[in-house]
C-alpha cells in the first residue's frame, strides 16, 4: 500500500534521513521508533511532502507521489496527524471534522450552496467523531477541549480525509497514562483494513497495535522486522529499548 524506497535528506552536511526504505502492505500496522532526534518526524515529512526529499521514491497504492505537493499526496490517500496539535482552534469539534470531511469530498469549488445543507458532510463528521470518542463534545470549541480530547481530534482530522494510509505522529505525546490507554484502545479499534504507519515513543502502544517495526537511529534504519524480532534484537536493546522498557 505504501512503499518508500531509498529516501534521503540532508540539510547542508547534516544527513537527517539516510537511505530509508519501508514497505507497508494493505492493512499493515507499522511503527517507526527510535531515540529523540533519530529523524522519525523528518521521515514522516518526507513521505507527506512537507519536506522535499533529495532523492528516493514514495509510492502509494501503485501511484508514484515522489514529486507531488503535500495536498496532492493527501488526496492520493496519505492522511496524517501531527505530533503537536495542529487543529482549527476557533472552530468546534464538529466544525473541525466537517471541514476535513468537506476537503475529503473535494467540495471546495462549490460556492453557491450553503455549507450547512450538505448533510453527507455532517454525517461523515459525526461518524468520525464516534470513531475517536468525541461524540459527546461535538459542539465544544476546540480551544476549550482537554488536551487528551484535542489529541483524539488530531487523529480524527487525519481519519476524516478517508486515507488509504493513516500516518500518526506520536499520537500519545504529552498524554497522561489514562489518556494513553484511551488512545491505545482507539487505535486498536480502527477498522483492520486501514493501513497505519505510526511514530510512537510509548512501547506499550507500539507493541499493542503494530505488527512490524522500523527502528531509526541517526537517520538510518537500524533494524526492521516483526514486533518479536525487534523486541529480541540485541542491537536495538543496546541502542534504544534498554532504556525504554527495562
Amino acid at each position: 500500500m505504501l512503499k518508500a524506497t531509498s529516501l534521503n535528506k540532508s540539510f547542508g552536511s547534516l544527513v537527517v534521513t539516510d537511505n530509508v526504505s519501508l514497505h507497508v502492505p494493505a492493512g499493515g500496522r507499522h511503527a517507526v521508533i527510535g531515540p529523540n532526534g533519530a529523524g522519525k518526524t523528518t521521515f514522516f515529512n518526507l513521505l507527506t511532502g512537507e519536506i522535499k526529499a533529495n532523492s528516493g521514491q514514495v509510492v502509494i497504492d501503485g501511484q508514484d507521489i515522489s514529486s507531488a505537493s503535500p495536498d496532492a499526496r493527501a488526496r492520493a490517500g496519505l492522511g496524517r496527524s501531527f505530533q503537536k496539535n495542529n487543529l482549527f482552534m476557533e472552530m468546534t469539534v464538529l466544525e473541525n471534522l466537517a471541514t476535513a470531511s468537506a476537503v475529503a469530498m473535494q467540495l471546495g469549488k462549490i460556492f453557491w450552496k450553503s455549507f450547512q445543507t450538505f448533510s453527507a458532510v455532517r454525517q461523515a463528521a459525526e461518524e468520525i467523531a464516534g470513531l475517536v470518542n468525541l461524540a459527546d463534545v461535538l459542539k465544544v470549541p476546540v480551544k476549550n477541549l482537554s488536551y487528551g480530547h484535542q489529541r483524539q481530534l488530531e487523529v480524527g482530522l487525519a481519519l476524516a480525509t478517508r486515507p488509504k494510509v493513516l500516518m500518526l505522529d506520536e499520537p500519545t505525546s504529552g498524554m497522561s497514562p489514562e489518556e494513553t490507554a484511551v488512545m491505545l484502545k482507539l487505535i486498536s479499534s480502527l477498522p483492520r483494513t486501514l493501513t497505519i504507519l505510526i511514530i510512537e515513543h510509548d512501547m506499550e502502544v507500539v507493541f499493542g497495535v503494530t505488527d512490524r517495526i522500523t527502528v531509526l537511529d541517526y537517520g538510518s534504519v537500524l533494524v526492521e522486522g516483526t514486533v518479536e524480532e525487534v523486541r529480541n534484537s540485541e542491537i536495538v536493546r543496546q541502542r534504544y529499548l534498554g532504556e525504554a522498557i527495562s
Partner: protein
Amino acid sequence: MKNYFTLERVTALVIVVSCLGFVDFAGYYGQELIAEIAILAIFAMSLDLLVGYTGLVSLGHAAFLGIGAYATGILTVHMGWNVASSMAAGVIMAGLIAAIIGAFVVRLGGIFFIMITLALSQMFYAYFLKNREFGGDDGMPGIPRLDLEMFGLDASDPAIFAVFTVIVAALVFVLLDLIMNSPFGRYLLAIHQNENRMRSLGAPIGLYKLAIFIVAGMVAGLAGSMQAQHMGFVSPDAMFWTVSGIVLIMVIVGGTGTLVGAVVGAAVVRMMSHELSSLTEYWMMYMGLFFIGIVLFAGDGIYGTLAKYWHRARDPKAPQDLAK
C-alpha cells in the same frame, strides 16, 4: 439547524432599509453621503474577503478600485461605450489583473504579502499619474452615469443615484454572503485559521487564495466603476496607497471577518472623518486616537464586539458556533 435569519443578515437588512428610507428626506448632502458610503461599503466588503476571511492583509487593494474606475472612464469617454458594458468591462478587467497579480502574491505570507501588494498598487498609481492620454495627475473628467431610463429614472438625480448605489451594495452583500457560507467559504475560513493543516488535509490552498483574490479584485473594480460614475471623474489618487490604508482601517474598525462589519466600518469612518474635519484642523489626530481605541478595547471592531455581546446575552452558555 438551518438559520436563515443570522444576526448579520438582519443587520444588513436594517441598514439597507434605513438607508432607503433616509434617502427621501436626506437632502442633497445626505444623498451624496449615502451614495459615497454605499460605494465604500462595497469596496470594504471586497477587502474583508481577503483580510477578515482568508487572512491575506492587502495594502494595495485600491489598485483594483482604480482599475474599475479607469476602465469605466476610458471606455465611456475615449471609446464611446455605454456605461453598462463599461461597468462589466471594469469588473472583468479588475478580475483579470487580480488573476495575474494573485498568481504571484498568494504564495507569500504576512509582511511580504503586504509589501508586494503595496508596491504593485503604487506601480499602477505611477502609471496613471504619468500617462497624459488618460489625464495624468489631473485625472479624467466627464464620466457619465449608468442610464436608468428604461426604468423611467434619471441617474443624475442624487436621490436616484443614492438608491441605485444602496441596491448594488445590497446585491453585493447577498452574493458575497452566499459565497462565504458555501463550502468554498468554509475552506477560506479554515485556511485563515490553519493553512498548514488545510494543506495536509488535501486542499490546494494556493488555488483557493487565488480565487478569492480574483473575486475581491472584481468587487473592488465594481466599487471603482460606481465611484467614477458618482464623481463623474477619476484621478490617480483613487489608487494611491492611502486609499488602501483607509479601507483597511474601515474593515478593522467595523470588524474583520463579517461583511456587515465592513459596511459599518465604511459608514463610521466616512462620517467621522467628515464631521471631525469640519470641527477641527487636527481631525486626523482624533481619527487616529479613535482607531487606536478600537484596536485596544474592541479588537473585534464595532460590529464584531456588539455581535459578541448580543450572542452572549442571548445564550450565555452556548459556544460561539462559526458554522451557523
